[in-house]
């Protein structure tokens, strides 16, 4: 079976892996990276693995994959990341370039700071493309900062204004959680899968019992990885990260 076609748009910080000529009527999984990440390197060999193995996988064969990026220092709030996702979702749902046709089903997968952009999009109804929640198949958050990151204070000089929104208990995160809780009863998006790293010292995993985001599936999953390795599968056949991704797209 041939590999997925690779569409590269460096100016838009995106890489699309799709069935040749694909798009119309297919499903699209959108991956969004974290703090100071890169739309491809954040995910290690995952893009390579999906490109090679997805076409012959009974679950993944219906899916195309969009690796989406942003410049961390240009981001002021979670809303900016949400807008990046919404923009490409809207294009994909209407078959605009570089998408080859209108996608009908979507999944969102994020890492670290990117997961907060996803959470923001879920609860900021005015930013959502038409029928977004109806087309949303699943949401998976790897290494999500449930209560920020203790590294954030140190990283302030590196990452620009968004770094403050990663500090433990920061106002933007508290607002997001409250916003999330307020609108979930009305918008009711699909259960959010939270996957945390057992060895994650960047965002940790201890807040899983203390900080509750409305709509998160229980329990959260715990994998034996650190923060960065949590989204970098080493091999396709036996990777638990692969299992989580397949599970998200099932």
């Amino acid at each position, binding site marked *: 079976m041939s590999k997925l076609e*690779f*569409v*590269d*748009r*460096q*100016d838009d*910080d995106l*890489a699309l892996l799709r069935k040749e000529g694909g798009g119309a009527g297919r499903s699209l999984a959108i991956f969004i990276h974290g703090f*100071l*990440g*890169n*739309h*491809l*390197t*954040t995910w*290690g*060999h995952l*893009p*390579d693995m999906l*490109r*090679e193995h997805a076409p012959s996988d009974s679950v993944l064969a219906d899916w195309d994959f969009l690796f989406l*990026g942003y*410049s961390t220092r240009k981001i002021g709030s979670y809303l900016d990341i949400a807008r990046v996702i919404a923009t490409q979702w809207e294009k994909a749902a209407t078959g605009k*370039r*570089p998408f080859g046709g209108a996608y009908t089903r979507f999944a969102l997968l994020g890492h670290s700071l990117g997961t907060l952009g996803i959470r923001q999009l879920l609860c900021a109804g005015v930013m959502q493309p038409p029928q977004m929640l109806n087309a949303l198949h699943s949401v998976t958050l790897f290494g999500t900062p449930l209560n920020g990151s*203790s*590294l954030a204070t*140190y990283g302030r*000089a*590196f990452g620009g204004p968004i770094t403050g929104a990663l500090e433990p208990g920061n106002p933007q995160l508290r607002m997001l959680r409250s916003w999330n809780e307020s609108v979930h009863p009305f918008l009711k998006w699909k259960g959010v899968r939270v996957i945390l790293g057992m060895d994650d*010292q*960047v965002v940790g995993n201890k807040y899983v019992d203390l900080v509750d985001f409305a709509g998160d599936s229980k329990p959260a999953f715990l994998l034996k990885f650190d923060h960065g390795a949590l989204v970098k599968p080493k091999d396709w056949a036996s990777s638990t990260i692969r299992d989580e991704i397949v599970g998200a797209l099932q």
Partner: protein
Amino acid sequence: MMDLPDEELRARLAAITRGPWARGVIEARQELAPVDRVQSSLRGARPIAIDQLVLSASNRRKSSRLSRILRAHFEGGGPVENDKEIKTRDAFDQALTVPQLYELAVQTGYLPEESIRKPARTILTDLLWSEPARRFVLAYDYVSVPMLANRVGISGVASTKPPEPNPNASLHFAGFLAHLRAFHTDEHIQAWVRFLDDYVVEHDEQNRLWEYLREERQKAPRRTGELLTGCQVFVLSLASAFQILSDDELGLFGLMHAYWLQKFFGYKRDRRGLFVKDVDLWGRTDSWARTIATSSRLVPVGTDSAIEKLIRRQFAERVLLLERTFEAVRRLTQETQQTTLRSDRLIQLSDKGLLPQRSTTNE
């Protein structure tokens, strides 16, 4: 070979040619351009023997001027300190990013060979019509450039055989390209690499920072925070790019950053152009990498001890990957210098009486 749709092909070519180095291409073309047009048939598909071009008297004079500007500093002729020379060399270095990326793009299957043939022949002939420019390319190990030249039918740069493309590595190239575009525009990284390159803002700044990091000086130089931030973003950016590459890709991709890795690990080039430890400056083991990684002042005072430990571990792991990459670069440089490139070059230069006068001191 793959068959890319036109739109995709255009987007990929533009990602290479319109990167942050595009300005350097324009400047280098202006600075290095021949006075008279070199040969009208260069743009065709026929093989080009670039070292056999017949130059007009004006072009020969220009070439002679370039031999001073583009000299290999380690071979003699004095350090490069003149602002105009530095500007021209920097622009040329930036411009050479494009042919290097063309070659890596073909090797990784990101672009089909036929798609870069015409633009590669154009930029190579524009930049490398003169002997000093070709000598610069070989002296400073732009290994991918002679590979590309041979790939697109240009002989006379060096006889390096380009490898067969690996059609499965295009995502590696795309990830690296995204990194490179960000690297060139990141203000923190640029502050740090300029510092590595001796652009300082206060007297003896490099020495003062080194002493401060070793706790031999209490007062921090003015830019300490800015430079340590730049260094850490530099390390993070390079490590994130290198970690997706296979062992046999590290050398060629790493070469794009060889200059900075050399400075970071306390190396210099010897008179043969090989990377050797700069013992006079750093001793046998010290370097910016080591000084910063082991400094108690890497992490601000008052940082939680668990966080400090994590920051140190992450930094050390990333530096280790950079070190592994620099080793691969040195290996590749040694292989290429010891085989075809060096012998080609020495024969060519010797034949033309262009070998620089060497001093008798050993390095």
